[in-house]
């Protein structure tokens, strides 16, 4: 979610701050959880607690998604159109990359990790935003 600060309403700025805080929280939570499992495994009791700690970033991610959805929902109609167009392009590229790359793997292409599939989608989302800004400049 990126937008030029001069092109935002006070409500957009408020929503973007909320989103940024949740995103920061998710980033910290993810890294702390991963560090805990990697270097201090003994601190996490086995069993249900392990799963709860592992699921913590997912819980925080739900708030990131909620705050992003709120930003898009409450953005003015042109900004919403630009965001939705960019999201549709990004989602489409991610989905079809995931769905189609299997055929290339069968043909001999290297297997990728899950997060590698996100990169083209994120790039296209960013390009979609830039295109929207340019289109309605």
């Amino acid at each position, binding site marked *: 979610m990126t937008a030029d600060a*001069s*092109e*935002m*309403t006070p*409500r*957009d700025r408020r929503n973007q701050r909320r989103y940024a805080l949740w995103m920061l929280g998710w980033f910290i939570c993810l890294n702390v959880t991963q560090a805990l499992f990697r270097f201090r495994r003994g601190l996490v009791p086995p069993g249900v607690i392990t799963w709860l700690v592992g699921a913590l970033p997912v819980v925080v991610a739900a708030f990131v998604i909620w705050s992003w959805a709120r930003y898009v929902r409450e953005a*003015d*109609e*042109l*900004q919403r*159109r630009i965001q939705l167009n960019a999201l549709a392009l990004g989602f489409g590229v991610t989905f079809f990359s995931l769905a189609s790359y299997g055929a290339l793997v069968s043909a001999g292409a290297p297997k990728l990790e899950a997060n590698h599939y996100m990169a083209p989608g994120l790039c296209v989302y960013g390009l979609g935003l830039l295109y929207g*800004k340019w*289109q*309605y*400049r």
Partner: protein
Amino acid sequence: MKNRLKVLRAERNWTQAQLALELDVTRQTVNAVETGKYDPSLPLAFKIARVFEQRIEDIFADETS
């Protein structure tokens, strides 16, 4: 769709940013409506009409009419 937004705004000596604040939209939206790159929704068109104390049809006109 043609519109008289720029003229009405100029008559009041408002900047795009001031009008955007009145309408609770971004300046980019005001600019896109003014230049005809974006047709506003009915609620936004009503809001624009209210701000300028005019009827919608006095501000917006179908390109073919």
